[in-house]
């Protein structure tokens, strides 16, 4: 095997690929050849290191230097300066890599962005080439499988997972080891291992990143699970919206088979296990475990009542073990480093780390992995770099349409399963959307309800009819026609749906409303009592006005108005015809004299 002195890793996940990472790759090839470095430096595509808003991201090893927002024309400079003269191109460094003074941080791990992170599930993302099994093997890949198949009984494997304290990373937080034990104890001639890669929560994309950046870790973990519960067949149910993930999983499954890690007689131990990919078709409810299995069976993805639980009667009525992508990604590490090591990370009831996709009104959007127990403040201000444009933090939304909002007053609560539930939210799959003072919480609640109404499968009335009624009330409130009774009705409805819906989707659908009511009731009240939207979002309650004293009658606003509702002439202030205005806000953005205001 050829030894290279440096490795250049170019992120090629969905986000960076859109930002020309392909061209950058070609340019590196050309520039290295030109400088005769092609035998010393190796260029690789890699998964996502997490800093998506700074893409495309290029990391140079062994230094671990992170260059961000790299353009094809910057490649020449990186090659000539960094790779040839070993001088770091400071200008292109990730902003957090500059420490106090002018010395760049030594490595990726020392940046402010990474310092508070601990990467277990994402350990290989952005570090290995996901399309090459040899790189995974070099990074301890398939060692856990070997250890399990050659030296552990199924019960020992299950015991290890139990002792580690790992809980399901897909939302509910059910102890993974217990799930494995239930599936092990169910006796049947056939059993299945499923991986839930139907990452449907809007704003969460950690599973995509793991599948794109480290697909072998999932295959290894599922094979281990197959051995532990006594199954020969696995299914990965992946969203069809993730074409790169599908492609890389396909390649990975193929390579694993060629190398004897998958298929008949794995590692010559007599154990056989195969994995098949199944694509979703755009139904959020299929992220619910029973609905997911119905969908794999080729039917409408409707949930079914539990019990019987999947561990007893799952796919095709056979005992089935179902875990989410991030949960599986932890398994090989737990086997190799031991359950005690894993259990030493995190808090008493939530062990290990959790990946969050931070987005919304925050400076560093992207994926982060933090030990359980890290506070929201650390996530948003230390890792996330705070709120852009000097705005004030209002709330963080976790758990997607099933979760709730955490207000500024609870910023110092450690993030773990149980504390989030106490706050009226939930861990969910790990989407964390930051909202600032310009976000209307009633509007956000409406947004999530629109989502659930859209995605409700229609099987049970509380969800099908109830969420629709809730949405209607929210529409009434945001259009300025709400009354105080509406808020009460909303609360009663929400609590009833929570108690009576069939599956997780319906039972948690009211959460965004209940949690915004809990922390931002004043905003709801402002909407119904004063007919005001304090954040200035709900269109029926705002209007744009031109300040006569500031208006220079330049006419720019009138020319840009899409509905021609602004009129005036030279020398006189312009006027907006309120009845025609669609409140798009274009005039306010375009006015060079800041003479147009939004009245709430």
């Amino acid at each position, binding site marked *: 095997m050829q030894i290279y002195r440096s490795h250049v890793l170019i992120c090629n996940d*969905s*986000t960076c690929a*859109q*930002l020309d990472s392909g061209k950058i790759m070609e340019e590196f090839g050309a520039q290295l050849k030109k400088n005769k470095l092609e035998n010393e430096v190796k260029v690789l595509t890699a998964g996502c290191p997490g800093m*998506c*808003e700074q*893409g495309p991201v290029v990391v140079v090893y062994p230094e671990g230097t992170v260059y961000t927002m790299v353009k094809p024309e910057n490649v020449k400079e990186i090659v000539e300066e960094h790779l040839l003269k070993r001088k770091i191109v400071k200008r292109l460094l990730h902003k957090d890599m500059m420490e106090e003074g002018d010395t760049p941080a030594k490595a990726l791990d020392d940046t402010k962005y990474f310092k508070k992170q601990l990467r277990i599930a994402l350990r290989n993302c952005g570090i290995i080439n996901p399309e090459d099994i040899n790189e995974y093997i070099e990074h301890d890949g398939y060692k856990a499988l070997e250890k399990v198949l050659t030296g552990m009984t199924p019960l020992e494997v299950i015991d290890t997972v139990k002792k580690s304290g790992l809980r399901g990373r897909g939302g509910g937080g059910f102890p993974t080891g217990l799930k494995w034990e239930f599936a092990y104890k169910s006796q049947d001639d056939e059993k299945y291992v499923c991986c839930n890669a139907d*990452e*449907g*929560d*809007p*704003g*969460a*994309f950690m599973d*995509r990143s793991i599948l794109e950046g480290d697909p072998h870790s999932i295959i290894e973990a599922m094979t281990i699970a197959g051995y532990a519960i006594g199954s020969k067949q696995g299914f990965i149910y992946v969203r*069809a*919206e*993730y*074409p790169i993930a599908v492609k890389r999983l396909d390649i990975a499954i193929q390579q694993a088979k060629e190398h004897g890690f998958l298929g008949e007689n794995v590692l010559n131990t007599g154990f056989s296990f195969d994995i*098949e990919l*199944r*694509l*979703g*078709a*755009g*139904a*959020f409810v299929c992220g619910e475990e029973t609905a997911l299995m119905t*969908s*794999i*069976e*080729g*039917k*409408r*993805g*409707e949930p079914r009542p539990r019990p019987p639980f999947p561990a007893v009667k799952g796919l*095709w009525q056979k005992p089935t073990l179902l875990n989410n992508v991030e949960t599986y990604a932890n398994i090989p590490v737990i086997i190799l480093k031991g359950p005690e090591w894993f259990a030493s990370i995190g808090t008493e009831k939530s062990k290990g780390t959790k990946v969050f*996709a931070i*987005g*919304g*009104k925050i400076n560093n*959007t*992207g994926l982060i992995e933090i030990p359980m127990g890290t506070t929201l403040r650390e996530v948003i201000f230390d890792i996330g770099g705070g709120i852009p444009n000097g705005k004030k933090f209002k709330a963080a*939304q976790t758990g*997607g349409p099933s979760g709730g909002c955490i207000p500024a007053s609870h910023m110092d609560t450690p993030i773990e399963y149980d504390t989030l539930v106490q706050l009226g939210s939930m861990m969910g799959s790990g*989407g964390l*959307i930051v*909202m600032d003072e310009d*976000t209307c919480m009633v509007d*956000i609640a409406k*947004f*999530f309800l629109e*989502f659930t109404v859209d*995605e409700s*499968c229609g099987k049970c009335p509380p969800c099908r009819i109830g969420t629709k009624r809730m949405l209607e009330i929210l529409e009434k409130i945001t259009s300025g026609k709400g009354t105080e009774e509406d808020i009460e009705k909303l609360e009663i409805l929400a609590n009833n749906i929570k108690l009576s819906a069939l599956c997780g989707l319906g039972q948690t659908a009211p959460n965004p409303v209940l949690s915004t009511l809990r922390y931002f009731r004043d905003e709801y009240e402002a909407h119904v009592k004063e007919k005001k939207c304090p954040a200035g979002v709900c269109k029926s309650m705002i209007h744009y006005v031109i300040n006569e004293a500031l208006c220079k009658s330049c006419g720019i606003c009138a020319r840009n108005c*899409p509905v021609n509702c602004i009129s005036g002439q030279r020398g006189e202030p312009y006027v907006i015809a309120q009845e025609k205005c669609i409140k*798009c806000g*274009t005039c306010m953005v375009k006015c060079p004299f800041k003479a147009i205001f939004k009245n709430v």
Partner: protein
Amino acid sequence: MDKGTCCCGCIDEKEQMLESIMQKHKNRKGALIPILHEAQELYGYLPLKVQRKISESLDIPLSEIYGVITFYAQFSLKPKGVYNIQVCMGTACYVRGASLVLEKLQERLGIHIGECTEDGLFSLEVCRCVGACGLAPVMMINGEVYGTLNPEKIEKIIEKYEKQGKVQVK
């Protein structure tokens, strides 16, 4: 759309391909959804005659197949535009102004969500989170992601496709 259909006895290529898709999956458990995926890729949508073929071949009632198709957002009973635009309405995109993007597109193309322009060039859909939240707000045109959108950028993107589309139609 159904140019491959012919009554004069000549060979319908698409139908043959559909047949081989069905043969490939037939013996798998739960084959219906993978077949529907590939059939839609072949035809662009799932017309009734394709549903009938699948129903006969898999011995699944047509009503059940129709039920599955209408359950999943990705399956379509209607043909889509040459360029299918999907605007992401995920949370991150929403708080960063996805509704403005959608409004602009509707205004520019003169169609609503779920519709297709008269010339058959564009169709408009909303989707939930394509996982490119770092670039919010985003949309996809035939699977290609466009990020950090604003009304001006949309104008340029649509213009580009209009030009391309006209060349293609000629």
